[in-house]
Each structure stands twice: as structure tokens, then as C-alpha cells.
């Protein structure tokens, strides 16, 4: 296995508050790595630092052997990251279909250069076809023409996932992909994510709260507590770890 992402000695603080302290984190190619931890443990901050939404105060982040510590989020996306947000971010006033077209055209722009962006007043046939394929894959058929802002919570999340997939990322980062979902939607989402992972051969990085989701998806589990990693490894081993039981799992 090759290491696709490698973070060493990350420190991150917001003002006086230290959120991450000396965190080192690895992501192996092909794994589904889930980060868990109690509220306020620093999961979302870790996620933000790795995706490039915010810069770390010290430490290094490598992606595919390249140092990306100083790169902004959009530059990391161009190097093979795709991410979702805890509250799905989509283009509210556009139709769901146009959301996908924007994502596909963005990938094409990054692949083929900026001149792909001008000179035609309708999306190219190939772009439309690809958008339609994604629509079918993710089951968004019924909502194509509605303004994306009017979609249901679950459909928004699916649309956002489809947009991330349109970028053809190597690493897909999902921040609490099942937050706010009903239990039945949740198992549906787990099935969809593992489907997508298998089909696209993706490396996954997730933060999650729900234990069912965690053990349904994870091939590796990392537990964060007070901004430090207290355990990392195969799910069943981490589950048996005494400290983890004490700070986290024991509460359930």
C-alpha cells in the first residue's frame, strides 16, 4: 500500500485555544479511514486542516509525496482531493443538473486549460452525458430541474457527493456524511458510499458520529480526544482499546 496523505506534527490553534496538538495522521491508498471522537475533540478542525480550508500553525502535510502544507484548498483539490461539507454546500439557485455541470466543467477546465470555458453557449454534449450518468448512479432522477435549494436534506447530500465524484478525486473527504439523517436514510447513505468507493476505487476519509456508520464503513479507525490521537488501527482493535472505551465508546 502506498501512503496517499501524510501529515506530521500538526498544530492548530484558534487564538488562545489549542485545537490540534502534535497530530500525525496517515491515509493509505484504498482505505476507508474514519475519524471519531467526542464533541470538541477536533475532528472538524483536523478535516479542515487536511482539506486546506484553514492553514496549520506548524507541521507538514504531504499529498501523493508532494508538500501541500502551504497550498490553498482549491490547489489541493486540483491535486486529487474532493470533499463534502457537514451542511451540504450546493448552488442553491441552480438546478441540480446545472450543479453537476458546473462541477464537470470545472474538472475539464483544470484538465484542458482555461479556453474550454469560452465560446459556446450550451454545455457540451459529453458534459451533459456525464452529468446524466452521475444522476443515474446516485439516484437523483426525480429532482433534476428543481432549484437545488428546494431539494430534501438527503438529496442535497447526494448531489454534493455527485459533484465531488465529478472531479474524479483520488481521495474523497466526507465531513459527517450522515449528519441529520434518519436511521433508514443513514443505512441507505452507508450503502451508497461503500458502493461509490468500490466503483471508483476511492480512498475515503470520513469524520462520523454514528457508530453504525463507523463500523459499517471503516477499514481503519482513528480516535481523537482533546486534540490528540489516542488510538488508530483496525476497527475491532480500536474498539477493544481500554482508553478509547473510557473516553468515547463507554458513553454509549
Amino acid at each position, binding site marked *: 500500500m502506498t501512503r496517499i496523505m501524510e501529515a506530521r506534527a500538526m498544530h492548530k490553534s484558534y487564538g488562545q485555544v489549542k485545537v490540534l496538538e502534535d497530530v500525525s495522521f496517515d491515509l493509505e491508498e484504498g482505505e476507508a479511514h474514519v475519524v471519531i471522537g467526542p464533541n470538541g475533540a477536533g475532528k472538524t478542525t483536523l478535516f479542515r486542516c487536511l482539506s486546506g480550508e484553514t492553514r496549520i500553525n506548524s507541521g507538514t502535510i504531504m499529498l501523493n509525496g508532494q508538500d501541500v502544507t502551504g497550498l490553498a484548498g*482549491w490547489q489541493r483539490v486540483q491535486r486529487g482531493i474532493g470533499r463534502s461539507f457537514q451542511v451540504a454546500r450546493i448552488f442553491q439557485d441552480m438546478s441540480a*443538473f446545472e450543479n453537476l455541470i458546473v462541477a464537470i466543467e*470545472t474538472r475539464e477546465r483544470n484538465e484542458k486549460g482555461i479556453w474550454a470555458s469560452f465560446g459556446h453557449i*450550451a454545455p457540451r454534449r459529453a458534459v451533459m452525458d456525464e452529468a446524466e450518468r452521475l444522476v443515474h448512479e446516485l439516484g437523483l432522477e426525480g429532482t433534476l430541474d428543481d432549484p437545488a435549494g428546494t431539494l430534501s436534506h438527503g438529496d442535497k447530500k447526494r448531489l454534493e457527493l455527485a459533484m465531488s465524484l465529478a472531479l474524479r478525486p483520488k481521495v474523497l473527504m466526507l465531513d459527517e456524511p450522515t449528519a441529520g439523517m434518519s436511521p433508514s436514510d443513514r443505512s441507505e447513505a452507508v450503502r451508497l458510499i461503500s458502493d461509490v468507493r468500490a466503483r471508483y476505487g476511492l480512498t475515503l476519509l470520513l469524520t462520523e458520529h454514528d457508530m453504525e456508520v463507523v463500523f459499517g464503513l471503516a477499514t481503519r479507525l482513528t480516535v481523537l480526544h482533546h486534540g490528540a490521537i489516542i488510538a488508530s488501527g483496525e476497527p475491532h482493535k480500536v474498539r477493544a482499546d481500554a482508553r478509547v472505551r473510557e473516553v468515547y465508546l463507554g458513553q454509549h
Partner: protein
Amino acid sequence: MIDYRVRFRTNLVIAACGLAAFAVVPFVANSGLLFLAGLVAINIVFGLSWNFLFSGVGLLSFGHAMFFAGGAYGMALITRHVPEMPFLLALVLGAACGGLIALVFGVVALRRASGVYFAVLTLAFSELIHILITKTTFLGRNDGLTGIPRPVIELGFGTLNLTSATAYYYFIIIAMTLVAVMMWCFQNAPAGRLLQAIRQDQMRTAFLGTPIQGWQLTAFVISGTVAAFCGAVMVPFTQIASPEIAYWTVSTQPILFTLLGGAGHFWGPAVGAILFGAIDYGTRTMHGLSEITVGVLLLAVVLIIPGGLLGLLKRRRAAASKSTRAETAGERTSETEAGK
């Protein structure tokens, strides 16, 4: 699904109808009205350039006068000092003046500010340019640059004489139509869709792998260039570049056009500009009445129909199609009931 071809054709027809309506003016109106119509045509594209920024990428500019004046003064200077330069090249250079101002200002302001802060910066910078113009002898101080001639264009196979107001008027409306159609095409190209995405959610667009600031700057420069082109085209028509066109009231005009006509529609500023021109003409004999009318109308539009006139039209149409759909559905149910 959106039918892009139909949408393109519809908008092309709208542009052609607008051009035809303006083309009739010289046959039915006196020279005063002709002059006003020419200015309205320029204002339409000036308004479109502002709304391109506001509704197109989500940047609020309170200083569009600086681009307009930049184009106008650029054109006036070239015509006076380099009279042998071809007219069309001079227009392009005039437009480039506005683009350059937008580039310099945008590089500084977009890095530092966003939202209201950005808007206030545009206002401040625009005022600075106004003051610079009134204090610079080279730019004619408070008198402006006067006596700008209208051109005679060499076409190779003949000459196009635009020295009469009517001939130049036709040049204006054709040039403005072309620019408007080009802007429509740009906004519906992938690049325009991307700018729209940036307006709706910057963070999402960034995490699709797009440098936000670079695209905002591009949009800013395009908007400034188009606004400057409007200024450059106006100068030979009015034959003067005066400091008033750099004043902040000129910056408010495209905002008024857009709010009156409707920001959510591409042609909103055009409707607003025409309405604004009509009010100006209707109240020309009573000094101050024009401002009062515009003020009251603006208040009414903002309070009663926030989407502007075209927004109202759109809603009416949506409601009408909904009620017809409900009616046909009603008929169908009554038919089935009758069938039972």
C-alpha cells in the same frame, strides 16, 4: 431540462427587437429625442456591465463611474492627441483604459476586502479619480475635454461617414447590441456559469478546484472594460468628456437601472435604463421633478416589487402557468368524474 438553444434564440430575438425599436427613432423623433435615445442605448450596456458584476459574480460596485470616465477620457485624449489613429482602435484602447483601472484597483481591493467593504472601496477610488480629473490640466480640469470630432471610418473599399449625429447614432445602437449579445454569450458560457457558482457559494466553488479571486478579478476587469467601452463610444456623440461623468451620481445610475428593471434577469438593466430615460424626457421642463419621480419609483419598486419590473413579469407568468395547469388538472378530474 433547460433547452439552451431555445434560450439563446429567444435572447437573440429580444436583442434584435431592441435594435429595431431604436433604429426607428430617427424617423419619428426630433434631434433632442434622438440624442437622448443614443444615451439610453449607451446606458443600457453600462447597466448590463454593472449587473454582470452584481448578479453575475456577486460583487457590489459603487464606483462604476471610474470605468465609464476612464473610457471616455481615454477616447478623448486619443482623439485629440493622436488624431490619425483609426477610430475603432481608439475605441478599443479607450475600453482598455477602463480595464486597466479595474485591474489595478481589483488586484488591491479583492485581496483585502469583500462585501460592503469592497463596495465602499470602489466608491472611494472612484471619487479619487473624479478629483484627479478636476485637478489635472492635461485632462481639462473642471471644463473637461471639448470639441471631440465624430469619425470618418476608412473601410478599405470605401468610407463610412459618421460625422452626423444620426449616422453616429446608428453606429452606437449597433455597437451596443453587439456588446450586449457578447455579454449574454459570455454569461451563458461555462465561464459565466462558474462566475454564477462563485456568487452562490464561494466555498463550494473553491473546493471544486477553482481560484476564486482570479475569477472575481477577471469578471471585474471585463465589467470595467465594457463600462469603459460605453464611455468611449459616448464621447464622439456628445463631443465632450466632462468631469461630471466621473462623479458618484453616475455610479448610482446602473444601480438604479438594475433595481428598476430587475437584477435577476439579464435584460433587467435595459428595461430600467429605458424607463429612466423616459422619465428624464417626460420631466425635462421641470427641474428636479426627474429626481423626485425616480426616487419615488425606486422606493415603490424596492418596497412593492423587490424583483424589479421583469421580476414582476416573471412572477405573473409563473402564476398564470400554474393556474392554467391547475385548470387543466381540474378539467381532467371533472372529465373522469363525468366518465364515472
